[in-house]
């Protein structure tokens, strides 16, 4: 009937948007999580200024994720959000506090900055944890009747999701640290190298743990892995390669490689997750095709997005270029 499968295209677009969010807001949330580890107020200024001009654009990908899901996969929107009700609130409260901290921290008197330092750190941490828990909840699945969530308020909060939450905290911290390696120098950069080193170990460990746990708890996923082992072996292998690449980059004091290698790690984990869950949008029952909006609505939105998203990517890249280079102590954006 239809020549092209719009739903498939939309899986790609939403997948791309969510990844853009995870990767871009990931590093600025990571910088927030690293805030208390900075040795001085000056270092915290530099950390914040390294992301201040871009964080708002980064976070807009989250809003696109929300609106995009409503447009293309309303069932995901209408089941995930009620199911994660409390978690979504915590994430939003975290994002609010860290978002306003960008402006408020610099405007508070020096002795009154502390609360906004804490808001920036705490908000980033809570938001990162909540997002990680969402990933875990997705793997876990949702209790759905018809097109509505019917489970309880805390079904999403299990030992498994706590672990995926902490895992994403570690992941974002790694992203933030490798971002700081790129954007800073001296003492702060040295600190970032040290933390990044520890986080690589933590992140690879969590990868392993989540994989084993998932296999143990969800036999059908294990079955799929074993069935396609001939192809899927590439994921753990490449992850290991990326991990080693990252580790060596840190050892050689490379400035760009660690960030790129972390990005590769995130991408592998993300693809691995999608392949393991495929084709379920709202596991265990509903596929992406069940969750789709009407083809007409998908098409109407697609036409515009295909034009506009490349433009967004272009001007986003341009602003990153405008604010390229190291952020130094005592050198602002004035």
């Amino acid at each position, binding site marked *: 009937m239809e020549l092209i499968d719009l739903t498939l295209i939309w899986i790609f677009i939403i997948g791309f948007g969510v990844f853009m969010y995870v990767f871009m807001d990931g590093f600025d949330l990571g910088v927030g999580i690293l805030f208390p580890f900075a040795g001085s107020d000056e270092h915290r*200024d*530099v950390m*914040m200024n390294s992301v201040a*001009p*871009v964080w*708002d654009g980064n*976070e*807009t990908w989250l*809003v*696109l994720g*929300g*609106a*995009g*899901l*409503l*447009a*293309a996969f*309303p*069932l995901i*929107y*209408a*089941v995930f*959000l*009620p*199911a994660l*009700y409390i978690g979504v*609130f915590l994430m939003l*409260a975290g*994002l*609010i*506090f860290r978002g*306003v901290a*960008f*402006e*408020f*921290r*610099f*405007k508070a008197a020096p002795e009154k900055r502390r609360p906004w330092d804490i808001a920036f750190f705490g908000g980033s941490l809570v938001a990162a944890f909540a997002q990680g828990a969402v990933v875990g909840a997705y793997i876990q699945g949702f209790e759905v009747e018809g097109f*509505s*969530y*019917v489970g309880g*308020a805390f079904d999403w909060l299990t030992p498994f999701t706590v672990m995926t939450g902490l895992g994403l905290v570690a992941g974002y911290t790694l992203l933030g640290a490798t971002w700081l390696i790129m954007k800073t120098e001296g003492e702060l950069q040295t600190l970032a190298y040290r933390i990044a080193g520890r986080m690589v170990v933590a992140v690879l460990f969590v990868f392993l743990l989540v994989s084993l746990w998932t296999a143990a708890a969800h036999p059908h996923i294990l079955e799929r892995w074993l069935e396609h082992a001939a192809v899927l072996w590439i994921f753990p292998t490449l992850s290991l390669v990326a991990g080693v690449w990252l580790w060596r980059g840190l050892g050689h004091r490379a400035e760009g490689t660690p960030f790129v290698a972390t990005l590769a790690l995130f991408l592998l984990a993300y693809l691995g997750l999608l392949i393991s869950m495929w084709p379920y949008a709202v596991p265990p029952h509903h596929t992406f095709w069940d969750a789709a909006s*009407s083809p*007409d*609505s998908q098409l*109407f*939105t697609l036409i*515009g*997005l295909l034009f*506009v998203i490349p433009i*967004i990517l272009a*001007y*986003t890249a341009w*602003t990153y270029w405008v*604010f390229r280079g190291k952020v130094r*102590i*005592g*050198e602002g*954006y*004035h």
Partner: protein
Amino acid sequence: MMELDPLLLSRIQFAFVVSFHAIFPVFTIGLASYIALLEGLLYRTGNLAYEQLSRFWTKVFAVVFGMGVVSGIVMSFQFGTNWSVFSYASANFLGPILAYEVVTAFFLEAVFLGVLLFGRDKVPRGTHLFAACMVALGTLISSFWILSANSWMQTPAGVELRDGIFHVTSWTEAIFNPSFGPRFFHVALASFLTGGFVVAGVSAWYLLKGKAPEASRKALQMCLIMLAFAAPAQLLVGDVHGLNTFKHQPAKVAAMEGVWETTDGAPLLLFAIPSQSQERNFLEIGIPNMASLILTHELNGTLPGLKEWAPEDRPNMPIVFWSFRVMVGIGLLMIIIALWGAWLTWRDRLVESKRFLRLTSLMIPLPFAAVLAGWFVTEVGRQPWLVHGLHRTSEGLTPSLTGAMALFTLTGYITVYAVVFIAGITFLVRIIRQGPDQADLSEDLPGAHAKRPFSAADDKTMA
């Protein structure tokens, strides 16, 4: 023991988070255009007074926009968390509209905001002006989409309801639904009035204090000229909007006018205490036949009374009735101030008239009150429907939501927003107290914090 009602709590929560959010964009839409104008004038004339003004208002913009952004992110999830059935039912239309808003407006604002705030010395002047224009354009495009979505809920068109799900039959009819035009111009003008009155009020206060007199006089004059057109124009647009509502949502107009019984030659009520339980008003004071004249253009035209609708199909009359009067009252006050100011400007007596300056600076909070009151009229007036006539508010609620969950998040949002709001207002007052002059001098102030990289709304002279 009172049972916690998730429906009522969700409605209160939505009203709270959307009202809180609404006050920021309505200000930043107008202010963004003003900053773009200042940057344009600076680019053309090279007059540093414009740069002084632009730098100053950009600081204010940064704080207000920041609060708008974070409270806006909340909005994009509210539909799903508390109104999942409504979201699922209306996703075929609202989803694409909101997605378009994100890609055509939000990214434009957010990304170019970075360049506007932090890029003044990093990009050529023309590029900085371009960034200011893109932020302003983004805010306007955003209001286009969100008002289309809201108007569609008021006057749904271009859709058909199949198995409880809306399917779009005509995108043009749905987007440009019957109430969209009047509502868009009404809100756009409200944004310019809000931005204009805030800038005018702050400038008037500076003139009283003798702060940055040259720049402040310039700013005040610019605003007053704009307001002298925009404030009366709002009366006309508001009238068109009212007629549109009378045609499509007569129950809302009945509540606005305080009409219970269908009346020929209904009076324009200036005061009344509507009683819902007794279905009548107390202490009515009105101008005979005026409401009929305004709405039907005939002295004895017929106004349907609220009793034409079953009690469960009526909006809450007292809220709609009084919100409407607050909005119109403030609107009329704005017209008086704007025309008076334009006259003073024309006679070149602006700076001397202390009374005018004081009054203008006292006006600052009023446009916000008018905007909120206006939204209360239209949103409460739409009840009991989410999508007028098609989808009830009670149908849209998330089934798994319990009263305790809703109470938890409602309390949470109130707490979080209270902290953010108090801090934000404190910082805004501080920036405004400091004023444009001092802020510029402080660029060269020595001291421990003078040379640090700060945020856009940087405050270097703070002790």
